[in-house]
């Protein structure tokens, strides 16, 4: 796929900024996003190459705007929907439910 992810040789993104003493995760949810992806892989719901291709299919504008683990989360959600494990409708319904609990 000739997508936004294939960035080799592309100019204009500025220098790579290396963070000193970078933590493994910057937020607790990032670890959970990683775990969710790994559980989906371990459970045989999707394979690594399907997962990578899911991330490639994130809309280009979003792909550039979101963080590394946001891409993992988006990719996992796409896979879970594609494979019928958790549909987008079920996911949205649960989001509604949780926001209701919080209100």
């Amino acid at each position, binding site marked *: 796929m000739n997508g936004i992810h294939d960035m*080799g040789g592309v100019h204009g993104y500025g220098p790579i900024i290396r963070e000193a003493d970078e933590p493994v995760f910057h937020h607790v949810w990032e670890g959970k996003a990683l775990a969710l992806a790994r559980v989906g892989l371990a459970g045989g719901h999707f394979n690594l190459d399907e997962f990578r291709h899911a991330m490639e299919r994130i809309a280009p504008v979003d792909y550039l705007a979101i963080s590394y683990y946001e891409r993992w989360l988006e990719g996992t959600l796409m896979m879970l929907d594609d494979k019928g494990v958790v549909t987008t409708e079920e996911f949205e319904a649960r989001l509604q439910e949780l926001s209701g609990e919080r209100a």
Partner: protein
Amino acid sequence: MKITREAVLGLYKQTGTARVDADAAASFQVGDTIQARNINPTGHTRLPRYIRGKRGQIATDHGVFKFADSLAHGAGAQPQHLYSVRFTARELWGGEAPARDSLYIDLWDDYLEPA
């Protein structure tokens, strides 16, 4: 499927590899000059755009590996040789690139044709 603690630990401890114990004929030998195919699949590929159509040399034959492009689309592992291929910086980026620089990239047999 129930995912147990042991299964998760195993997943993290094992070194995941796509190497397979399968017979597949190698289309190329170390030292061969190849040209990367100019393919533009709409699905998953590990052949970056900047390599397509470029000429390089087989540096190492890693052996037989599962093919990511087919695995990403339910088309099976299609085991085939995976090579480390050397491209000069000048081949990839033109005459202004440093003469001594080169790039090594792992490419599957299906990506390559004789040059």
